[in-house]
């Protein structure tokens, strides 16, 4: 860095995990210029995965704690915080972000504005119908569970399954509705889908599969049930929509930053957007993975936000040193006391599965003659070994042998 460098400003838009890791990495890399961190939520960066896990399971005194205190961020890292204010425009010619009625000039910018959950049907204005993204959402859902709510979750993905899991841990009735024939099957294959069905049923969660929600029943403005397309009425005191998210990029419309049709930001393999000096990370970013034959993925998981947030900041500040990202996507989820983990990609030529729910399951994903993905249930010792094999473009045969000899899935 030269003396001039110290006057450059890094602006990070989005104050969740990716944004936090971006400002930390900027300082780690020796950047001494000013940094602004803009966040739409009023909160300091906090640990979002807990909201659907420990927070829902916990007692009323369980709080959402920030990763770093205000003084750690302001004083130790020298970050200027603009929280509770959404960026509402990006002028790529003047290099400025508009926020809270003013604007902030940037030399380099990292966009990590995350995503907003989708709702189902006409949910607005109905008490008791929620999404889960923020601590306020989680507090509303937990309060309903504390009152013994009958819980209906729309969408059998990871968030929905964790909410059902929290409900069953409290011995509350839980139902999951999904248009698919089995949870996770479209992404991870029918074998994994069958395992997911088994986990839910074993725990006493009711599944309404191949069913769409057609409306909500209410009394006095509060939800009392969910109507399905076969006219079934599922009684409910609280409903959570877990049907995925939409990248929070409306503020970039017309900015010149190229967006994907799903609203995400199209990046190159170095996390650069179409605009010089502007990088993106986390839930918003579509990234081509060299390791997976340049497949484009928009990955919405914790580790992706953490790893790419740091990388995006380093690349934004020193584009000449940027290299293609080589991280292997990884996520985990906890269902009914079972640990589910996935590494790599599930876009594969073949899936092979071994094991039983009671003593651990491994599904491996093959492309050509190498392993590209691994899905496990209760195999915490194995998952990172698979991740290393995937990162090293390891052979399929070796991975199958390591897994203990797998038989082809049906």
């Amino acid at each position, binding site marked *: 860095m030269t003396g001039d460098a110290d006057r450059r400003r890094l602006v990070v838009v989005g104050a969740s995990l990716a944004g936090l890791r971006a400002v930390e990495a900027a300082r780690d890399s020796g950047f001494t210029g000013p940094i602004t961190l803009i966040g739409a939520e009023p909160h300091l960066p906090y640990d979002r995965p807990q909201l659907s896990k420990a927070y829902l399971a916990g007692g009323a005194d369980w709080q959402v704690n920030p990763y770093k205190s205000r003084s750690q961020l302001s004083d130790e890292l020298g970050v200027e915080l603009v929280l509770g204010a959404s960026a509402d425009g990006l002028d790529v010619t003047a290099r400025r972000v508009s926020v809270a009625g003013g604007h902030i000039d940037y030399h380099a910018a990292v966009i990590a504005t995350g995503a907003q959950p989708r709702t189902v049907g006409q949910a607005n204005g109905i008490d008791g119908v929620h999404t889960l993204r923020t601590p306020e959402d989680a507090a509303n859902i937990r309060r309903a569970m504390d009152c013994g709510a009958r819980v209906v979750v729309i969408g059998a993905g990871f968030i929905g399954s964790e909410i059902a899991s929290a409900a069953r841990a409290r011995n509350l009735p839980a139902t999951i509705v999904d248009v698919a024939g089995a949870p996770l099957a479209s992404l991870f294959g029918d074998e994994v889908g069958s395992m997911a069905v088994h986990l839910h049923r074993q725990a006493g969660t009711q599944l309404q599969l191949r069913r769409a929600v057609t409306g909500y029943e209410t009394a006095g403005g509060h939800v009392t049930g969910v109507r399905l397309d076969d006219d079934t009425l599922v009684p409910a005191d609280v409903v959570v929509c877990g049907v995925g998210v939409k990248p929070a990029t409306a503020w970039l419309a017309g900015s010149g930053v190229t967006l994907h049709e799903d609203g995400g930001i199209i990046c190159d393999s170095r996390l650069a957007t179409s605009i010089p000096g502007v990088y993106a990370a986390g839930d918003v970013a579509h990234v081509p993975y060299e390791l997976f034959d340049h497949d484009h993925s928009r990955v919405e998981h*914790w580790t992706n936000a953490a790893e790419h947030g740091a990388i995006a900041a380093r690349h934004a500040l020193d584009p000449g040193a940027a290299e293609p990202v080589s991280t292997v996507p990884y996520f*985990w989820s906890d269902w009914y006391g079972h*640990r589910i*983990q996935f590494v790599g990609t599930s876009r594969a030529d073949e899936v092979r599965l071994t094991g039983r729910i009671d003593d651990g399951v491994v599904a491996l994903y093959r492309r050509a003659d190498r392993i590209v993905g691994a899905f496990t249930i209760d195999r*915490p*010792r194995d998952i*990172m070994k698979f991740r290393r094999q995937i990162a090293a473009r390891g052979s399929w045969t070796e991975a199958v042998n390591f897994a203990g000899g797998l038989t082809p899935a049906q």
Partner: protein
Amino acid sequence: MSIEADYTLCEGLGMCEAMAPDYFEVGDDGQVEILQKQPDAADRTDVKAAIDSCPTLALKLNE
């Protein structure tokens, strides 16, 4: 200098093992085992990155 794990926080998510497999391994019980408590000088950056990557902030390096 030694690595320390807080087992009340560790959830065995394995980020540390991914980044520094010579130092960390998650066991069948879902808790990390520290394979080598004193990092070699040459590995310090990797070990620090592994510690910083912990989603549950369960690891620290005592100077």
